[in-house]
């Protein structure tokens, strides 16, 4: 066990855990941020996607010790009330079915639009490739990313 200093959604806090604990479980069980989901545990589905210093990463493969003092953003930290342009686009297109994968999808999309504010369909598909949606909402996700890109460029 070790005390690790974290900076999650702009809030500095410390946790006392095994330093190898994946960030996913620290978020979900120690910090009560359950929007980040467990899907596979091997970085193969994207459900646990968060931002580490603005980059989309799979939190199930990120030991908490390697995130010490780095800026972490989770779905809960994107906006106060669901009004980030990407979240708004998701609502406009009523994307979710079961909804389980959607916070991971949104976090990947936000990182994509940060790096590439006006992606083509192929660039969206490539960037989102690691995020599985078992319900098959891929077309709505693509449409929502494009809507968000438009609204961000206004």
């Amino acid at each position, binding site marked *: *066990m070790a005390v690790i200093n974290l900076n999650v959604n702009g809030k500095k806090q410390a946790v006392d855990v095994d330093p190898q604990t994946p960030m996913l479980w620290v978020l979900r069980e120690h910090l009560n941020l*359950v929007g980040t989901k467990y899907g596979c545990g091997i970085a193969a589905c994207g459900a646990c996607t968060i931002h580490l210093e603005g980059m989309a990463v799979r939190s199930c493969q990120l030991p908490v010790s390697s995130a010490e003092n780095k800026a972490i953003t989770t779905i809960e930290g994107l906006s106060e009330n669901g009004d980030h342009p990407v979240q708004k686009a998701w609502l406009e297109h009523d994307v979710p079915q079961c909804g389980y994968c959607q916070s991971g999808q949104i976090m990947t999309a936000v990182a994509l639009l940060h790096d590439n504010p006006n992606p083509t369909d192929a660039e969206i598909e490539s960037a989102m490739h690691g995020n599985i949606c078992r319900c098959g909402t891929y*077309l709505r996700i693509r449409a929502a990313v494009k809507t968000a890109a438009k609204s961000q460029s206004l």
Partner: protein
Amino acid sequence: MMAQTLFKTSIGRRSFLKTSVLAGGGLMLSFSWLGGCQLNPKDGLTMPKEWFELNGYLKIGENGIVTIISPNPEGGQNVKTSMPMIVAEELDVDWKNVIVEQAPLNTELYTRQFIGGSQAIRQGWRSLRLAGASARQMLREAAAQAWQVSVEEITTEAGTLFHKTSGKSAGYGEMASAAAKIQVPKEVKVKEVKEFKIIGTSRKNVEGRKIITGKPLFGIDTKRDGMLIAMIVHPPAFGMKLKSVEDSSAKGMPGIKDIFTIKTFDDAYERQYFDTCTFPEVVAVVGNTTWEVLNAKKALKVEWETFSDHTISRNAFGSTQAVDIPAGLESTTEHMANMAQWMTKSANVVRRDGNPELAFKNSAKIIERTYTAPFLAHNCMEPMNFFAHVTAKKAELVGPLQKPEFTEKALSSRLGMPLENIEIHMTRLGGGFGRRSYAHFLLEAALISQKMDAPIKLIYTREDDMTSGIYRPTYSATYRAALDADNNLIAFHVKAGGIPESPLYANRFPAGAVDNYLAEDWSINSNITVGSFRAPRSNFIAGAEQSFLDEVAEAAGKDPIALRLELLARASKNPVGENNEYEANRYAGVLELVREKSGWDNAKPHIHRGVAAYFCHNTYVAQVLEMTFENGKPGIPRVCCAIDCGIVVNPDAATNLAEGAIVDGIGNALYGAMTFKEGLPEKNNFNKYRIIRHSEAPKSIDVHFVQNEIDPTGMGEPAFPPVIGALANAMYKATNKRHYNQPFVQALETSALRM
């Protein structure tokens, strides 16, 4: 006089008997942080001080806010929005003043609280309308009494009661208290379809905002003070059971509370239909946190041994069956060989019309083809999990499951606790697809909690989830068709089976459309457990049948849509035999619509098209799939889909569901497969089990609904099965090669490279 639709309320059981007037916000039917839709301050609504319950489905606040209780579990089929829309329609309220709450399992108040068979809207239609209409009637009577006028003179609009002559008006909230004291009417008038204001309009998912902000909604998000985390270790292979556990080092690991074995079912217990359980004895590991439990799970040394042939007793909806579970470590190669033997053997005749043997003998041309598909894992994105808190007096269970009513019985028996001491709360399901109908994980959670005397949350790892069985069975079907010299279809023969069940539906199209018809089934037993998977059996037989009809049309020199319409015209005018399970005109209707909307009669260069149509779960669907090959890579630019599900309650949500079913169908047909080697499932996570991804989905899907006023039918399953046929038929056009064995990906990519 205007035609009136009157519903008798007598079917209403306790849900329509007035229960109680709840004061002070006493939310009798609500629960915990996971359940209700909290008011969003942005919506400008304030929580009422008092709620007045008019029946089991709704309560009205003094300020006019309405809570509608959604009875069924929500797993992405959007019933938590669509079912309350039906109540709101008949209650005649403004949708923006409606809050939706999830009902817990309550067999006294509600009927059929489960996900399965695409039946929620179809079977809920009447009671949901009745709930809204009877409450509206009680509000009108309350207003009539208050204003001393005839109830007939009271009208409503969007949550307000009016008396035109006197000019009086009052919000529902003002009359709610009085209405709650009024006798439930014996008979109420419901709206005519043309009067609908909410049904037939697109309303957004009531939990959309919670989903996109990451609020706790799913079973796996459940948390309680003092809650422990539990995981299980199950046998690595089918045909194996627990022999011994060496847990001394794992027990001493940080955070570990206990390690023990549990037996999910008593040997003497007669299992119910949904009590399928692959591994009835498993090892439980319990600790403080998931990471600590995961580490201990890895350190555990468990020995397994093969089991012998045995029999369990199962009650299938009233009759007791002996289910034989054969010993052995099975492999996919043997499965395929064993199924292939049935191609040439006679099987069990399920339906026979005319004289098929003679017709085949006298035919000018015979076509015979065999189709296969593998076992499939459901792979819900939220792995199996459940929260349990079992004490000596009561059991509280919270989590995602599809058929709580059936699971409740097993739990009551296993814990030796009466049903009234058991509470089951349904959380949003992170996918179901049939898998969560078999809630052995709930029993496991309850037994672990009981042993630990603490609240626990059981979580399956992805590997546990994917290798724990309850798969879609593997299937095979052999079709034969006979054409006469004029290319008329004179005989049709289907022989279908699988491990361990047959996918045959003997009375579906083209039964009824062909004079000489033979349907046979067979099955091979196995110890690999299976269960419902989105559109059970249809999910294979539709694709096989629709691929075969494509070949029949080609052999007859006919357009594939024209051939189907010709057969359906026959079935409509002069059907063969009895018990044909479809309406030929509605079937033809979706084919006509898809022909028009897809531009079928105007072929485009380099676009290879396949068509399919199917009827299952009371809904008719036809699809045209377009395929391209660019730089040796197959692509799907478009799927056009026509649906007849009667009245469409929430069109955009229904469209979303159809889009998802199409993506899911294509994905499973191209990539889905669970294979076995000596009992061992060969795939245990998403690095091995291929799931369709963004770039592989169709570029566009357009969904068109037949407009009619027929009572609505389901949307969760029917768009899934036919797309597999449309895909296979488009692949043939694209590759000049027929594809018979799923998953198609390897053959398709090989063909693509050769093009």
